């Protein structure tokens, strides 16, 4: 794994450990709200000045089939990890679909650039280590907003670390190729978020709050397989 990803990973690990340590006395979902809001400001500034324009340029200049193939390529690696996590969650049939997708798309789909599995009706179903930990009973811990990476929690952030360490791209020896792939993966993810971001911009009275609440609800929904227990209406 390259040193950049590694240093991000260890910083995240440290942050998670610190936050988890402080968190034991707090009960609310976002005990570090002032800090998180500051990080959100940092994110908006840096992302808005550098990352977002690049992502928009990518969407404007790269033809759609090319972008779809880029998404498919990284999505194929995601499917592999979804499969592993579905096994860890005890969903063997779903895991079989995920591994079947990887097999089909890696071969007939030319290293994942195309998605014949979806055409054949084997749909994609994303899951990750954060959801697995949640199903195992790990509490989500405090909410954290990480600039340039987005919303997460102690539990989900730990899942990211596992994923970053395990990513096959990290094991590529050619440094330039490896970093290009990491960069392209990031760009692809960012570009996919452009339309969701414009919805957030239009819909929210307070973007930070709206994003946090939507993120936590979506994660909760996944941990409970679409049947989350009722929330308390009042805080």
């Amino acid at each position, binding site marked *: 794994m390259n040193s950049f990803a590694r240093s991000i990973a260890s910083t995240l690990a440290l942050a998670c450990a610190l936050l988890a340590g402080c968190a034991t006395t707090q009960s609310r979902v976002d005990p570090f709200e002032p800090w998180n809001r500051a990080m959100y400001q940092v994110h908006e500034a840096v992302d808005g000045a550098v990352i977002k324009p690049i992502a928009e340029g990518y969407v404007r200049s790269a033809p759609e089939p090319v972008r779809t193939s880029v998404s498919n390529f990284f999505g194929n690696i995601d499917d592999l990890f979804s499969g592993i996590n579905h096994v860890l969650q005890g969903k063997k049939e779903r895991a079989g679909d995920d591994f079947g997708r990887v097999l089909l798309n890696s071969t007939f789909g030319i290293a994942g650039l195309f*998605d014949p599995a979806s055409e054949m009706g084997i749909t994609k179903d*994303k899951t990750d280590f954060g959801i697995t930990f949640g199903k195992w009973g790990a509490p989500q811990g405090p909410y954290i907003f990480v600039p340039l990476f987005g919303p997460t929690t102690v539990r989900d952030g730990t899942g990211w670390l596992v994923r970053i360490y395990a990513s096959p791209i990290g094991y590529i020896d050619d440094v330039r190729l490896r970093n290009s792939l990491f960069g392209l993966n990031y760009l692809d993810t960012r570009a996919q978020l452009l*339309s969701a971001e414009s*919805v957030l911009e239009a819909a929210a009275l307070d973007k930070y709050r709206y994003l946090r609440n939507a993120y936590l609800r979506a994660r909760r929904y996944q941990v409970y397989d679409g049947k989350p227990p009722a*929330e308390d*209406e009042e805080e």
Partner: protein
Amino acid sequence: MICRWMALLFAASLALTAQAQEAPDALVKRVAEDVLQTIRGDKDLQAGNQAKVKQLIESKLAPNFDFTRMTALAMGKNWRSATPEQQKMLTDEFRTLLVRTYSGALSNYRDNTMDYAPLRMNPGDTDVIVRTSVRRPGQAPVQIDYSMAKTPDGWKAYDVIVAGVSLVTNYRDEFNDEIKRSGVDGLIKKLTDKNKGPTPK
């Protein structure tokens, strides 16, 4: 002449009854496919021509939503403490906000295809959830559910649940916080200011 009028009236009343009796899942499918077809066939809509997008939403989507109920649900317990005038202003502003939000997003939907889950509904049910899922090339499908209630004007949606996130519930947090900070009038002002701001792209 009279015969012709009678026939017309008869046809019109038939059409009306057909509409009133349209099942909620059939309604969602008809409207969604209609809107997707319209977008696919119109370069202006794909380019995000705001006037045209807004017209499409007002003519095809908005009539199928119960905005008063959505606003009341998003207000939660605060709804009853609001005066009828405040309730009306809130409903108008919230409706405007939602239409504007949709206007910004709609042109992105050209490449989407929708799947419709079979509806589980007993005869006599007046409140159902219509489940759909949206497929986009290169991405995992997103589940979008519509909570719908039977009204005298046919079925109307009162909540949209995207990937498990209820629109109404998410706004309840927003509204609650604003009301705690600056009261119902503060929330109305916040909504009005937001709606007066630049049109989102």
